[in-house]
């Protein structure tokens, strides 16, 4: 009888929990990473490139996952140039994988296991997933709900050129200076992500615009050129300290955050001769990949630096 009652209780619990939707809470850590298939674009030579990104459900935890069963592609080579260092939250349109012209209806699957949960992204050439610069511009938030114009449709991505070698060898604890020249066509113009209510703030007696709750009907971002030195791959157990603090390359939408997706963020003034410089210091030997990331708020370009860190 006791077993019967226990079974009933378990069954009731299952019935009660099944179908109950939970709200999305803002976890600091402990949550999984969902790899994201972003879309595909056809190359001039007839091959295709598939675009991937990810969503780390944590707001604070940065996760390192080496290439292998917990961070790998299939079929074929598990290493397709994916990141092993996962920043918090949404990291959109991160890397391309080229597939042959005769790819057809095959799938390219990226598996990521983080904090005990495994998720996969399925790359296909389904029509709904076709992307181009307009899609990047829109999805990044540079044109709000989709108000484009001929100027922004002419926009080209920033140009990121290495200053110095892109392959370095340094010792643990020894800062290495990494620089890149980042230039752009000036499109789109520097524009902070504002709010429609700003113009009414005076009427409402608000003296600090931050007191207006941020409101965004869809993806939205500031625009204007900026650069950031970001960690793309880290040695197992390794931590990289980048100085000075860099603009976040991930979508930190919180008020005051140093991110183009944060309310009222303004792109920094470009340095002299557009030479962006930061130092990186490593605490563990091994191989690292850092990117100089250039963004005009709509389109991006990345330049990898490969760093071998010795004892």
């Amino acid at each position: 009888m006791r077993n019967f009652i226990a079974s009933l209780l378990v069954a009731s619990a299952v019935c009660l929990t099944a179908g109950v939707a939970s709200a999305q809470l803002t976890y600091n850590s402990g949550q999984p990473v969902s790899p994201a298939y972003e879309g595909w674009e056809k190359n001039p030579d007839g091959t295709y490139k598939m675009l991937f990104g990810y969503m780390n459900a944590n707001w604070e935890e940065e996760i390192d996952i080496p290439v292998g069963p917990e961070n790998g592609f299939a079929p074929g080579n598990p290493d397709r140039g994916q990141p092993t260092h996962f920043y918090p939250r949404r990291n959109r349109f991160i890397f391309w994988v080229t597939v042959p012209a005769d790819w057809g209806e095959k799938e390219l699957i990226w598996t990521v296991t983080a904090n005990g949960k495994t998720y996969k992204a399925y790359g296909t050439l389904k029509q709904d997933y076709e992307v181009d610069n307009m899609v990047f511009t829109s999805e990044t938030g540079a044109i709000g709900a989709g108000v484009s114009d001929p100027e922004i449709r002419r926009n080209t991505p920033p140009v990121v050129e290495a200053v110095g070698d892109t392959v370095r060898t340094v010792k643990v604890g020894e800062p290495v200076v990494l620089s890149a020249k980042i230039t752009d066509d000036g499109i789109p113009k520097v524009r902070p992500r504002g709010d429609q209510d700003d113009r009414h703030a005076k009427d409402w007696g608000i003296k600090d615009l931050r007191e207006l709750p941020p409101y965004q009907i869809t993806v939205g971002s500031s625009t204007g050129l900026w650069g950031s030195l970001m960690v793309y791959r880290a040695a197992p157990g390794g931590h990289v300290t980048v100085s000075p603090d860099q603009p976040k390359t991930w979508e930190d939408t919180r008020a005051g955050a140093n991110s183009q997706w944060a309310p009222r963020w303004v792109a920094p003034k470009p340095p002299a001769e557009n030479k962006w410089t930061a130092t990186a210091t490593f605490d563990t030997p091994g191989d690292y990949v850092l990117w100089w990331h250039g963004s005009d708020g709509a389109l991006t370009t990345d330049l990898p630096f490969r760093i071998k860190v010795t004892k």
Partner: protein
Amino acid sequence: MNQRLFSSARFALIGAAGLAAAISAMGATVNVPGEVTFSKDIAPIFQRSCQNCHQPDGVAPFSLVSYKDARPWAKSIKTRTALRDKPGTMPPWYVEKNIGIQHFKNDNSLSDLDVAKIAKWVDSGAPEGNPADMPPPIQLGDNTRWTAGEPDLIVPSPEITVKGGSPDYWGELESAPTGLKEDRWVKSVEIREVNDVPAQADGGRKTVGSRYVFHHMIWTTMVPGAGIQLEDLGEGSSGTWPVHEVGRNADIFPDDAGKLLRANSVIVFMSAHLHSNGRDTKSRLLYGFKFFPKDYQPEFRYARRSLANAVDIDIRGGEANQRLDAYQVLNEPTKVTTFEPHMHAPGVRMCLEAIWGFNVQTLSCVGYDHNWVRVYEYDDDYAPLLPKGAVLHIIGYFDQTAANKNVPDPRNWSGSGNRSITNMFIDLGQGLALTEEQFQAEMKRRRDKFHWTPNQVVIGCPLCNGEPVAPPENPMRRPASTGAGAGGNE
């Protein structure tokens, strides 16, 4: 309705369990006595709710005018109508009938009795019955029929072509002059996509959008050179024009809150979101305006609705029933005139709540299908009437599984974005900003009309069932009870 009903195999038939649940939720308690025949029982239902689209040469894939037309589709009709508020239902109206306000201006849904009759008719072999029982035929328009009535003014957008294999696109179109010679207050606006997709065929792609290529149009009006736009949110504001969305129905504005269309104005097509339907398609929008009489003046101004949370969305692949929430504190007494869920392919349901202290009322829950975006217009007597300080809350439900046929690959994660396959989460509904005097007057009007007492708690109007309670002259003492019929012992 100028939208195709019963279109294609786009929507998977729900599983047996789901279907059984849908029927039991609404039909099991409805008893339909006697024989049900097409001529006597079913034809009147079709005339009322289906034939606008399902007519010869209509936009629907088949006609439901005659018994001969309808008989081959009987089983499909039973299945679709039994879905009720779920994606894929016909007609496309998704209000859940067991929760919230049930009074809308533009409700073309079937009653529980209608659905039960259709089910019994099909289950009994779909008999024709006596042709003499047929109701007189209704006057059918062609496939350009306007559901809000024949417009006083029709303004076409420029024609565009969307290639069959092209990514999503967002951009402006050339403005179109209204030709209006004097200011007029608009009673309704209906925007319809007219394209060259054959009426009896799919667009070609079996995912979101169906035959349509305009997935949204953000638009405004202005007088060239004068810079007058509708979005002036100052005194006497008309608010914003409603966004056109894929498969959307008409907007009928409240009698006391028209929207101003200026003389010599043009329609500014600010943002067209175009999504290929899988075939090269020529398309344009037709704007149909109906006007109030020339001496009309509105009583109310529109309030700003900012009820959305379209950033940071995290919809995991292969999971149903994923939830998002968004809130808005009302800064002034507000009459919520419409509820308009806007999501994208993964969205399947949205609820609207009013939170007033510890009282929480669900105002509406509706299914969602991104082939048929609906605006739900509350009847004037039942439109939510909320005090300053109340909180509007929307709850969105997302289904990223194979059960949701709008999603091109349900195994994949999906986040925020403007693409039809990524996510928005917005209530694009509108409302009116009331003064305290207008708020009290409207509550009194309803209270007098319906003779509400404290024994009747009114959904959507938490303060409608009692008289005003004056603040105490001496704040240190409790106020005396002034509520009529409040009773109780002190």
